[in-house]
C-alpha cells in the first residue's frame, strides 16, 4: 500500500535571486524578486497563489509578522498563511506544510518565500544558544560551535579526520565551479582547506558556510495540477521531520538522532531506500553536518561517513553526488532553500554541466536551530 501523501504534492515552480553581497537589497526586495521568478518559472498567475508561507530569517524587521508584510507587498490575500522560524530547517518544513494544506483542501497553490540580507543587512550569527544563563559565560558562542562539538566527538569516537571534512568542502566547491549562480566558484584543494585558518577547532574556515544576501521561492501544488503547468513535474514522493528539543539534556544531541527519523519517514512514505537516491542535497551549514546526514540517510553505517566521503564518492560522477550546486558552503548560504531549488532542477534535468545523468530520485535535507530541527524530502521525476 502506498502512502496516501506520497506523490500527492509537487513542486511546480522555483525561483532564486542573485546571491552573495547585494548592497541595496533588503529581505523584502529579495523575497519579492524570488517570488516573481518562481511564478514565472511555474507559469502560474499571481491570482492563482492562495497559500503564502514564509521564513523571516535574520534581517526582516517585521519578524514573525513576515507573512503579513509579504502578503501586503505581493498583493496576495491567501487562504492559508504563516511564518515559521526553524533556521535551516524552515524551507523543508514549509514545503511539507504546504502539501498538507493542499491535501486538506485549504489551499491550491502555495508559495513558500524567503528573502534575507544577512551579508549586508546585519545578520547576526554569534549568539550563544539556549535560555536562561547564556553559554557565552564560557565563551560558547557562534553557529560554528555546535558543529565543532559534533565534529570533535565524531573524530574521537570514529577516527574521523579533518582531511575527510576537507573532501566535503572540496566537492561542494567543485560543484559550485560548475554553477554560474554560485558565490564561490574558484576550486579549492584539500591542502588549501587544511591551510585555511582555524575558526573553532576542529573546524577550519573552509569547513564553514558563507553568509549571503539572497532570496528563494518554492511553489507547491498538487501533482495533478502541476502536470498541466509549464515545467516538468517534480513529485514530493516522501517527507518527514524530526526534532531533538533537549540540547544539554540529551546525551545524543551532538549526533542529531532525529535526523534519522526524518529521513526514515521520508523514505517510508516514498517507498524508497538509500540505494534509490541518485543525488542528494544535504544541509551543510558546516562540513560535519554532511557526515551526519550521510549516516542518518543510511548511505553508510554510523561512524563511517568520514571514509565514505573519500575518493570522490560525493562528487559529480561519484556514487552519490552531494550538493551539486555547491551547497551552503560554496553556492550561497540561504538556510537550505537553494538545496530544494537544486533538487528540483536536478529532477527536471535543467542543471547543464552539473546535471547528474538519468537522476530520478533526490534526497533533500534541512536542519536548523543548531542541531535541533531537521527534515527530509524525497523528490522524484514525475
Amino acid at each position, binding site marked *: 500500500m502506498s502512502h496516501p501523501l506520497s506523490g500527492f504534492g509537487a513542486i511546480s515552480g522555483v525561483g532564486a535571486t542573485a546571491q552573495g553581497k547585494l548592497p541595496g537589497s533588503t529581505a523584502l526586495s529579495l523575497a519579492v524578486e524570488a517570488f516573481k521568478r518562481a511564478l514565472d518559472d511555474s507559469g502560474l498567475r499571481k491570482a492563482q497563489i492562495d497559500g503564502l508561507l514564509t521564513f523571516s530569517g535574520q534581517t526582516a524587521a517585521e519578524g514573525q509578522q513576515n507573512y503579513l508584510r509579504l502578503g501586503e507587498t505581493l498583493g496576495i490575500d491567501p487562504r492559508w498563511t504563516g511564518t515559521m522560524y526553524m533556521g535551516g530547517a524552515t524551507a523543508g518544513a514549509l514545503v511539507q506544510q504546504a502539501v498538507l494544506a493542499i491535501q486538506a483542501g485549504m489551499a491550491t497553490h502555495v508559495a513558500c518565500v524567503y528573502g534575507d540580507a544577512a551579508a549586508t543587512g546585519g545578520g547576526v550569527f554569534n549568539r550563544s544558544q*539556549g535560555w*536562561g*544563563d547564556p553559554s557565552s*559565560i*564560557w565563551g560558547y558562542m557562534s553557529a560554528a560551535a555546535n558543529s565543532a562539538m559534533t565534529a*570533535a566527538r565524531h573524530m*574521537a569516537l570514529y577516527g574521523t579526520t579533518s582531511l575527510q571534512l576537507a573532501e566535503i568542502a572540496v566537492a561542494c566547491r567543485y560543484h559550485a565551479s560548475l554553477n554560474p549562480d554560485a558565490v564561490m566558484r574558484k576550486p579549492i584543494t584539500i591542502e588549501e582547506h587544511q591551510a585555511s585558518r*582555524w575558526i573553532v577547532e576542529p573546524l577550519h574556515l573552509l569547513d564553514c558556510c558563507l553568509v549571503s544576501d539572497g532570496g528563494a521561492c518554492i511553489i507547491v501544488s498538487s501533482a495533478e495540477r502541476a502536470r498541466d503547468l509549464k515545467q516538468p513535474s517534480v513529485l514530493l514522493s516522501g517527507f518527514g521531520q524530526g526534532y531533538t528539543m533537549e540540547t544539554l539534556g540529551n546525551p545524543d544531541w551532538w549526533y542529531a538522532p532525529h535526523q534519522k527519523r526524518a529521513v526514515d519517514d521520508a523514505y517510508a512514505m516514498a517507498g524508497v531506500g538509500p540505494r534509490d537516491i541518485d543525488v542528494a542535497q544535504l544541509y551543510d551549514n558546516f562540513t560535519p553536518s554532511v557526515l551526519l546526514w550521510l549516516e542518518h540517510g543510511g548511505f553508510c553505517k554510523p561512524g563511517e561517513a568520514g571514509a565514505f566521503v573519500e575518493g570522490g564518492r560525493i562528487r559529480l560522477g561519484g556514487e552519490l553526488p552531494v550538493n551539486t550546486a555547491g551547497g551552503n558552503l560554496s553556492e550561497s548560504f540561504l538556510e537550505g532553500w537553494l538545496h530544494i531549488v537544486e533538487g528540483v532542477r536536478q529532477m527536471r534535468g535543467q542543471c547543464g554541466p552539473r546535471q547528474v545523468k538519468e537522476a530520478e530520485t533526490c534526497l533533500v535535507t534541512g536542519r536548523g536551530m543548531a542541531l535541533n530541527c531537521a527534515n527530509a524530502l524525497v523528490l522524484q521525476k514525475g
Partner: protein
Amino acid sequence: MSDYIKPLPTLNDENRPFWDSCRAGKLSVQQCSGCGHLRYPISPFCPRCLSADFAWTSVSGRGTVFSYIVFHQAYHPGFKGELPYNVALVQLDEGPRMYSNIVGTPNDQVRIGDAVEVVFERATDEVTIPKFRLRAAD
C-alpha cells in the same frame, strides 16, 4: 566596579541558588522532588515528569570531557585577549552535562574522555564561575 569583561549571568530568583552555590565552592543542580531527576540547565519544570517542585542539590563536580573545541575567533570582545581558548562539554558523573572551560592544561593536551573535576574562578563579587581541570582517572 569590576574589571571583568566577559559575559556574566543575570542573577534572578531562578538561577541565584546555582551561582550562590558556586560562590560557596559547590556545584549544585536541581533535583526534581517528583521523580528525582537531576537537571541542568536550570529550568522551572522537570522535563521528565513536569513537576515544578525541586530542591538544589550539590553534586561531586567530577566528570569527563564529552566533547571539546578550541575557539580561534572571538565572538565577544571579552574573549579577544584569551585566544585561542577552549570550551568543553562536560559529562558530570551524576548525569547532567554542562559547557565550561578546562583550565590548567594546554589546549592541545586535552582529550575527549579525560577525567575532570570542578574548580571555581571568581569573576566578580557576586559571580564565581565553575570551570574544570584534569584529574587522575578513577
